[in-house]
């Protein structure tokens, strides 16, 4: 059953498209666990409670080239209103002149480059993830689950779809029979087997941790691979380094209030939003915040085996 439509059709005010949680009367539980995962969850003492999902469709904001243009405001070492990273990478061409034709004041900068943090894009993505996770969490709470395992968190349609992205969070809610509900069910992107190992190791998952970092890159001649100016280029490694640092910082920040650390981080570096030769260097990290609940876990010493294959 879906949520009831409002009878108050004539009421004034803005249209509200609220989140409609799953209100089905569940006849049985569903799950996207494999059989082996389900067995691992049962060994821990939990049972599947239902397949849960959170979704959000977002219009993504991105500063990058649209906001600043390719040539605007390049006089200084940094620009923009925020305190985020920005750096210019002058054209490396000197055309053999002593004074450096390409680098002289007022001369045409054939392949001037710059990089700047794209906090708008990072915030858009973080918000999409947040909404999807929150809705997944709400569904799990509604069916009285103690947690959700194997959460798959991803988005689609970022490239080539006019800046929209659909965020998904999917997983299987699990419950511990006979135990009262938790104030907030735990979430983890670990599989059923990894969840079992985590509990055995003395850690309990608390929630998902997400980190996003983005740097807009307008490459200079060296970063474009111009063979007439070969050598070390700093622009690409700097952009990767800053995007990764930001993702790392926000990953730690989201986990800090709930656990000692983050494990099982799925790390993605990619180039998106290509405008001509420029791009957004994007880093996304999704992991599980964990908390140590026991220091008395027995050591797990794996026995080396050598399979004899037919």
């Amino acid at each position: 059953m879906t949520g009831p439509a409002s009878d108050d059709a004539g009421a004034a005010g803005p249209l509200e498209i609220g989140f409609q949680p799953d209100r089905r009367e569940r006849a049985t539980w569903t799950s996207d666990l494999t059989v082996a995962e389900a067995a691992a969850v049962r060994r821990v003492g939990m049972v599947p409670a239902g397949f849960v999902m959170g979704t959000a469709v977002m219009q993504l904001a991105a500063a990058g080239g649209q906001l600043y243009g390719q040539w605007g405001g390049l006089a200084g070492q940094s620009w923009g209103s925020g305190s985020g990273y920005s750096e210019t990478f002058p054209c490396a061409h000197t055309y053999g002149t002593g004074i450096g034709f390409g680098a002289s004041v007022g001369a045409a900068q054939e392949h001037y480059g710059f990089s700047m943090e794209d906090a708008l894009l990072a915030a858009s993505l973080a918000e999409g993830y947040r909404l999807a996770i929150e809705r997944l969490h709400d569904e799990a709470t509604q069916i009285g689950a103690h947690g959700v395992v194997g959460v798959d968190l991803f988005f689609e349609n970022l490239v080539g779809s006019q800046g929209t992205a659909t965020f998904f969070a999917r997983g299987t809610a699990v419950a511990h029979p006979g135990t009262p509900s938790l104030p907030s069910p735990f979430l983890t992107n670990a599989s059923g087997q990894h969840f079992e190992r985590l509990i055995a190791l003395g850690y309990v998952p608390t929630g998902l941790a997400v980190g996003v970092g983005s740097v807009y890159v307008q490459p200079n001649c060296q970063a474009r691979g111009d063979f007439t100016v070969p050598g070390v280029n700093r622009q690409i490694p700097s952009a990767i380094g800053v995007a990764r640092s930001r993702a790392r910082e926000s990953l730690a920040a989201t986990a800090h209030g709930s656990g000692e650390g983050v494990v099982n981080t799925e790390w993605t570096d990619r180039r998106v939003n290509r405008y001509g030769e420029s791009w957004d260097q994007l880093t996304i990290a999704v992991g599980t915040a964990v908390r140590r609940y026991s220091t008395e876990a027995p050591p797990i010493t794996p026995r080396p085996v050598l399979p004899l294959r037919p």
Partner: protein
Amino acid sequence: MSARTPTEPGIATALAALRQPFVAGDQPTFLSDLTVGELVLLEEIGYRPVDIVSGAGSASWNPQFTTAATEGNMWGRAIATAIDNARSGILEELRSHRADGVVAMKFELEREHANLLTCTMLGTAVHGADRRAGSAQPFATTLSARDFHLLVRAGYHPVGIVIGVSVVGFAARSASQSLGLSRDNVELSDQTTALYSAREKAMEMMEREAAELHADGVVEVQLQERPVNALLTHAVEFIAVGTAVCRGPDGHRDLGPEFQLTLEDPPDTTFSDR
């Protein structure tokens, strides 16, 4: 029903802990891209995650006129510099975290425009409980957590990533040669020689790097051979990357593996495109 102590491991204790508010200690939040299985393997040999660390390097070269009997010095140096800068970057991050090393690292080489290479490294920095105070230099390794676990249990420890890079040109066949040889089975000796030469130079460089680290040997050497044939460029690129290791004071320890015959069939994939 046995009474459980408050910290006895198990799901009931774990859920009880979640009812209590979390109080952050004075330790910074650790980050890791290890799976839980990898975390178990590292904790078992006394290593704990500290943070995710990364390094990146990028360089370009002019590939033109790298042909017969020429060695692509600038080309080879550019590739080595890109990898070396990524390695230096990750080691610098390890030092700033006072970590002992980085494991389960993702090592990637990305090529663009045929003459631009970017090397990225990313992994989990770890602290080892048994690391000796004298071993001040952090190590980087391309080994997975599983292989690192096995290496340490076997009595060795990694001391660093070592690389070897070489680019060697070879003669292009003229049109008449191509036509003349097309009906014969003959070895293209120039190209065979170039491959040998590139391999020898790269492995010499790798061995030199390992010797500088006072390593006993190099494990898990991975090779990338890439012929490049363009209008004015005929060369072979050879890149070797491995982990230099040292034997510990107790020498080699036999892991004594148990032979196993699995009765399982391969897993069936109902939805293979998933």
